[in-house]
């Protein structure tokens, strides 16, 4: 028996997208001086949403100078309590405008409204709210008395959680007393530009937050600018490496949150239905555009058939389509480039001998789409088991013993996250101790909270975001 769903679209009338945007520097929206312009599109329709500035070196220079002036002139002189109050204001305005921002995020990014509304936006506001409270309590954070801010922070964020990554970067930076220049991803600049308007509404002193849009060149100019004291980057391991190289010999403090290839490990005693939900959430949440996605499913051999039956049945119920439809589970792939990469690695998976499966799934005619896909018969040598696909593609491997599961899980240069499913408490803790990953989800997956430190081991980067630990990235300690 099948259910028919009537369309249930969220109205887009709540958002007002300008035909073009400038750069947000020193509290003003300004035209680029030496930059160019590029278009941002709705990945679900390929419709052009707006024209955005690609900041040039001179623009970046102005933004850094504005941040420095604000740091020296106002922000570092404000009482900590006042900084906190500004952050509380930002948190409240984000809550007030959360529906508008959720719709805008779904339009620009392609993610389902159910996720932008129920996950991204609540976490964005919570993150500001959490760090607002830290602003006047830094003496008690365990970094000694009166820990000092670093100065100007250069922050470069990815397109998978545009506003959430902005919150992860800006909230702790401001709470610790830094000023920032943030570059949103090329394909998802609109919510960051909306955040500029929120800074205006909050009467945030000019220059404390500056937003420069653009692509890799803009990001490079920002990160390599001699006037910045801190670099925070979330994105690919390859770009993270370049940044680590480029800051060598400088005094810039760096935190990097990079790629992952997480193992989601299911033991034979795991509650099957819960595990299947966790697997689906682990890899199909946000179209798999998640650095900590559970992209390698490790299943104990004795239950693999049963589990795959359940999993395939569940994948058959996922609804792919209009991101603004409230019933949609899987939205659009963010960009044609990303779609091409997912297609390429999936073809490699087939060519290398893994078996590909997707549920029957109609893809819309326009926009960038990829059906939920799983590969069975995957070996550790296959590229789909080693490389980050960053899409709705799950590689299934098997194991017999806990030691083998651990060996396979840790057999990767990445170390961002891992999942363990078992009813046996001692086994959870045994695995959690030995998994070389910054976040271990046991009998759950893809949970995030502003109070919970997040970040990687090995080539997944260094530094932590969230919690008390997240303050360290923005203090001179």
């Amino acid at each position: 028996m099948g259910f028919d769903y009537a369309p249930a679209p969220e109205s887009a009338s709540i958002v007002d997208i300008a035909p073009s945007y400038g750069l947000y520097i020193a509290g003003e929206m300004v035209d680029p001086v030496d930059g160019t312009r590029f278009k941002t599109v709705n990945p679900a329709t390929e419709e052009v949403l707006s024209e955005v500035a690609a900041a040039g070196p001179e623009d970046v220079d102005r933004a850094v100078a504005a941040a420095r002036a604000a740091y020296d002139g106002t922000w570092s002189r404000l009482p900590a309590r006042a900084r906190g109050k500004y952050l509380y204001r930002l948190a409240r305005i984000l809550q007030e405008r959360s529906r508008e921002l959720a719709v805008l995020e779904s339009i620009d990014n392609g993610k389902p409204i159910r996720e932008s509304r129920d996950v991204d936006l609540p976490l964005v506001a919570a993150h500001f709210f959490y760090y607002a409270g830290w602003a006047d309590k830094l003496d008690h954070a365990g970094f000694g008395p009166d820990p000092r801010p670093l100065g100007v922070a250069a922050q470069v964020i990815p397109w998978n959680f545009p506003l959430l990554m902005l919150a992860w970067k800006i909230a702790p930076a401001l709470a610790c007393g830094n000023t920032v220049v943030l570059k949103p991803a090329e394909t998802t600049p609109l919510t960051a530009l909306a955040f500029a308007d929120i800074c205006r509404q909050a009467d945030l002193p000019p220059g404390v937050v500056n937003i420069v849009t653009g692509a890799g060149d803009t990001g490079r100019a920002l990160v390599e600018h001699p006037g910045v004291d801190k670099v925070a980057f979330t994105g690919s391991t390859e770009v993270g490496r370049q940044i680590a190289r480029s800051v060598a010999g400088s005094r810039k403090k760096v935190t990097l949150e990079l790629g992952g290839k997480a193992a989601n490990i299911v033991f034979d005693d795991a509650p099957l239905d819960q595990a299947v939900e966790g697997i689906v959430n682990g890899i199909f949440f946000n179209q798999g555009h998640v650095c900590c996605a559970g992209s390698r499913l490790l299943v104990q051999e004795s239950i693999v058939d049963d589990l795959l039956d359940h999993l395939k049945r569940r994948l058959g119920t996922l609804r792919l389509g209009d991101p603004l439809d409230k019933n949609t589970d899987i939205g659009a792939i963010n960009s044609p480039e990303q779609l091409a990469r997912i297609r390429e690695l999936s073809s490699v998976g087939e060519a290398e001998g893994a078996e590909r499966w997707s549920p029957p799934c109609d893809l819309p005619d326009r926009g960038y789409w990829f059906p939920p896909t799983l590969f069975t018969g995957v070996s550790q040598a296959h590229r789909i088991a080693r490389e980050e696909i960053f899409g709705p593609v799950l590689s299934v491997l098997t194991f017999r013993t806990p030691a083998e599961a651990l060996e396979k899980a840790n057999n990767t240069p990445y170390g961002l996250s891992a999942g363990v499913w078992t009813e046996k408490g001692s086994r959870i803790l045994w695995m959690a101790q030995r998994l070389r990953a910054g976040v271990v989800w046991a009998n759950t997956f893809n949970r995030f909270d502003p109070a919970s430190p997040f970040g990687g081991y090995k080539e997944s980067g260094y530094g932590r975001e969230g919690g008390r630990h997240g303050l360290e990235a923005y203090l001179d300690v």
Partner: protein
Amino acid sequence: MSDDGRVAVRKTYKLYVGGAFPRSESGRTYEVFSAHGGFLANAALASRKDARDAVVEARKAVPGWSGASAYNRGQVLYRVAEMLEGRRAQFVAEVADAEGLKPRPAGEVVDAAIDRWVWYAGWSDKIHQVRGSSNPVAGPYFDFSVPEPTGVVAVVAPPDSSLLGLVSVVAPIIVTGNTAVVVASEERPLPAITLAEVLATSDLPGGVVNLLTGRAAEIAPWLASHMDVNAIDLAGVTDEELATELEAAAAENLKRVVRPPAAPPDWAPDPGLDRMLAFLETKTVWHPVGI
């Protein structure tokens, strides 16, 4: 020949790798002189191969050392301090030669080094509570964060402070469960080799500390670019250009890097937690709460 006509038995100074004292596989040595220019000994001039062997041994030692209980690591490190104290006279003589100090100030340096070691030993079962946390997440989950060792850490020891500086960079690496590949002070390596002899007789498992003598400029680039090294401490790199090269090479596998100090450091004051924290990862574990 001493005053009574007896010919002294001199010590051969070698590398310390995997709990053994090999010569350099290259067969090379170099002359070590006292601060006043007198010949002291021939030290092994370690090669790329020696560095790579040391990394292999350091990696092998990671599971056992990081898996030992914090209490046990504290006991072993305290035992090291006992052995240091027992060899105090030898260290005073070597530090005096190496650093050109009179016996009394040399003694003070050795005392400070022993006390530094004891201070770090005590951290083994305390850093978790200072650094870890339980996290009040907005949902029915038990969520906690714990510090864990980064893995294999390479360190270029300070060039001037041959014992106190050395102890101040090695102890914070290993106390939390990391293993170390140490490049000793090029011109003042003898106290480091004697420290290795102390480590070898202190229940410290072989491979937890591996010590190379030779030219930092020759050995350190191999360690900085080695894909099985997880972090590098450039404490003793005084050449800015070399430091930049090493940091850039370390980016290849995103090693954690501690940059050289901006000014020549004074190793005497309380060091704080920085050097321990630099080589700790934070792991956060979530589990649902329910019935």
